[in-house]
């Protein structure tokens, strides 16, 4: 294999791909990135056996097609530190030479055949969605995933498709975020999948061009996302997602409308006087407005007043973890949020229009 690459394009591609590469693994080939030169394009492939990425870049000149398997971190460091506009990468057996104007690196790699086969995108995509929409759906929910949980498969995001409707749900047992969007259906079958958080974080970086269209395919054990130049494949999280529709309350009769910016600022300030053991802030809603108070033992107290444009229902006191509220308020893309509540020990529902909904469980305050 011999290719002359645009260094800038190579840095960009390597940065995206190396997000998959694991640094500590008993299988050394997994610390590598695979280079494949063919048809005037260089494709970079990396996998951790759970998630894999193919990314091809046309900004190369292929003088000899072929493959190479090179340690990802060294390749990335060399390419990043070099100053030449182009670099020549040539492979002979398991050795790879990277040559610049005044430099020559020789890297010991592995036989390209040792690399696990990364799945390729099939011809029959389930649906298409704009990268911008996909981005929004993921960003509005991914923060609510659990890091680990034994009982339900909630360390990932649930993706459900019904005809043209996409629903994305994430929860960690304390709160639940749900975002809705539209897609272009290519196949009739309704599918749902729980996608691991790592894959989604990579996806957010990989498909950051809002103009792109992403094709999606879900099969029994994998989900694949593809654009013209990139494919991301991920194993699914096995197990059941909790029955999320049941935990979304619909009987909240105390309804507040709060300007988003003011709410963020107030919650953030009240949250200053909370600590590890005393995380909750008390929110007192009434016709007169909202009063947020917090108290941290051995530290102090805070009280923030918020005027409410709209409030219906009886007065209510409820405690929430400010971090949970802020997580959702940060991704909200509207000027106002609606908060529906029922009682001090019942969940609150934060919503903006029909496309975003967030259930947050209260904390029992002292």
């Amino acid at each position, binding site marked *: 294999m011999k290719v002359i690459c645009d260094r800038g394009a190579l840095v960009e591609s390597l940065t995206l791909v190396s997000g998959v590469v694991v640094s500590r693994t008993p299988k050394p080939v997994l610390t590598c990135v695979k280079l494949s030169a063919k048809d005037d394009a260089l494709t970079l492939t990396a996998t951790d056996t759970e998630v894999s990425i193919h990314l091809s870049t046309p900004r190369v000149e292929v003088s000899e097609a072929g493959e190479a398997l090179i340690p990802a971190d060294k390749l990335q460091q060399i390419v990043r530190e070099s100053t030449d506009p182009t670099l020549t990468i040539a492979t002979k057996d398991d050795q790879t030479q990277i040559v610049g104007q005044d430099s020559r690196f020789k890297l010991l790699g592995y036989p390209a055949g040792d690399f696990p086969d990364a799945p390729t995108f099939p011809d029959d995509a389930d649906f298409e969605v704009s990268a911008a929409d996909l981005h929004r759906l993921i960003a509005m929910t991914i923060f609510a995933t659990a890091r680990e949980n*034994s*009982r*339900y498969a909630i360390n990932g995001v649930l993706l459900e498709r019904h005809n043209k409707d996409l629903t994305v749900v994430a*929860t960690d*047992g*304390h*709160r*639940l975020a749900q975002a809705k969007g539209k897609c272009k259906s290519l196949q009739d079958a309704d599918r749902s999948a729980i996608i691991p958080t790592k894959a989604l974080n990579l996806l957010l970086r990989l498909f950051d061009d809002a103009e792109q269209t992403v094709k999606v395919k879900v099969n029994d054990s994998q989900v694949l996302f593809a654009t013209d130049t990139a494919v991301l494949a991920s194993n699914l999280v096995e197990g059941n997602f*909790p*029955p999320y529709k049941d*935990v979304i309350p619909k009987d909240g009769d105390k309804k507040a409308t709060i300007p988003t910016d003011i709410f963020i600022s107030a919650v953030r300030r009240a949250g200053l006087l909370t600590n*590890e*053991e*005393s*995380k*909750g802030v008390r929110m007192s809603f009434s016709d007169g407005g909202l009063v947020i108070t917090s108290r941290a*033992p051995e530290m102090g107290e805070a009280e923030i007043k918020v005027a409410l444009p709209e409030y219906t229902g009886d007065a209510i006191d409820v*405690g929430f*973890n400010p971090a949970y509220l802020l997580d959702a308020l940060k991704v909200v893309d509207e000027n106002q949020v609606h908060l529906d509540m029922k009682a001090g*020990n019942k*969940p609150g529902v934060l919503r903006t229009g029909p496309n975003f909904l967030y*259930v947050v*469980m*209260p*904390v*029992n*305050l*002292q």
Partner: protein
Amino acid sequence: MPIRQLPTLVINQIAAGEVIERPASVVKELVENALDAGATDIDIAIEEGGAKLIRVSDDGIGIPEDELALAVAPHATSKITSADELEAIGTLGFRGEALASIASVSRLRITSRPTREDGTAEHAGVLEVDGGEVRGPSPGASRPGTVIEVRDLFFNTPARRKFMRSAGSEFGHINDCVQKIAMVNPDCGVTLTHNGRKVQDLPRNQTRRDRCVALMGKDIADALLEFERTDDPSRGSARVWGLAGMPSLGRATTKFQHVCVNGRPVKDRNLQHAIKEAYRGLMPPDRFPQLVAFIDLDPAQVDVNVHPQKSEVRFRNPSYLHGLVLTALRQRLLGADLTPAAHVRSPMSNARNEGGTALAAPPNIEHRTSDIHTASDFVDYFRRMDPTQKGFVYQEVKKQLKEEAPGAVSAEDDAFEQELLNRQAAASTSHPPPTTTHQSILQVHDSYVVTQDEHGLVIIDQHALHERVMFEKLRARILDDRETLESQRLLVPEVVRADAARQAAMEDLQPLLARLGIEASPIGPGEVAVHAFPSLLFSRNVKVGPFMEELLDKADGGAFDKIELGDAPGGTDAQLPEEAALHEVLDMMSCKAAIKAGDKMSEQELASLLEQRDAIERSSNCPHGRPTTLRLTLKDLERQFGRS
């Protein structure tokens, strides 16, 4: 068989069965008699564990020759005259049984030279009793005082003799008994020899503290905390004084606890419980502190006439004394720096042994001062003792520190200085005294924290200390401020398996769980649902399921059952069972939530952990009683590096 009156000898032998159980009982009775006779020096000589000879010589008032025969008669005593005096007994003996009992089971010889009221001595008299058969009295020769020799104990009661243990074991009991008595009589000199070898040599007119230290072992003197408390007369005018061993001196039995009431060594479960309670959380539950406690109270408040050997007493108001001892000890322990010293074998002493001086000295000669035989041993001993070890540097540092930090608790043994420091510390509570300054902190193997304080090098078990810190915080919040812990409700309840017994145990625990912020209810056979869980545990990544399972297992296993208080009900202890159960659960919570060994900590985290160590009480031990901190003192280091 017709009924008949038993001969006196048999009556005495039966009584001897109660009073004279083993050689140690003889020693106890004889030494107490000597003390009641006003002795200022008592020599005790034992041969073959007391089986062959027990000789107690005193310099007391003596017994006139014409009273000698009466002394060995049953129910004859000079100590009381009427039943009224039983109400307030001032002497150790009073039953008039001891000598008669001893005489009936041994060959007894009393030689006594009494002192007249004008101070001159009468002539001496000798009385011999051989298994109850009295010979004498006849004139004899002796220095002023009384010598009682008991030979061939139990020679005429073979059953008793058979039950005697080895000489070493019996002598051990004698030694314990002599120690107990010597401890409460520091004015009286006591020597004890076994087979001609001197075992105890206690000079007369020692202070109470010196006497106790001499008996408990000089090597632990630095680790004894003096405590004292006098209640005002309105509450009962009792006074307790004692020396409390640091938790690191814990022993596997209560044998090293000496409780004395009005100068009488006693065993009392109630007071033992008070001691145990004061050390709660400072020691593992199967360890017991080394301690002496002297309680002085109005003799009318205590009944000593409940046990033939007088080792048990009965108090008019047991829970009051329980409270007194508990408060006195607890206050002392809370104010003290309980960090144990790290034990490091001295390479220097080994090096010197091997270093060609050709000495066949036993390796631990430091502790065996009486075993120095040869001149070269002596020289070597002093060399290793390092007479100059209290060197210039250390003294200077110490002095400086005392000037700078009057509140720092010193582990020195000067009681007055200690008292002064304590008072200064107490006086300046408005602005806390400058405590330990940690100049550099190092985390070792992500498990231990090493730093320094004014005494030397400090090694901390990060998990144990953090556990204690969390525990104290939670305890203060829940017990002192009566607050409940904040809890986070769950979107979907966490289901935990729990059989009927565990469900029942959980129902009993409900009030406790509510205060801890855990909301759980049974949702069917074999399962409980957890609806809310403390925020604190969530933020420390404690899993709901395993935690609840362990909690219920413990509850089912009886870990939180109310703890019986022995014979000290009511009074100050009313809230104790609840406190004990909470202690258990909080202990579990803090253990789960604390930093684990192997967790990397940032510099700020380390600094804040050490800061909290200074701020909380009982920081020397984790709630299970294991130590959190070890100290290698400058003195140790200097010795180790041979910089003396």
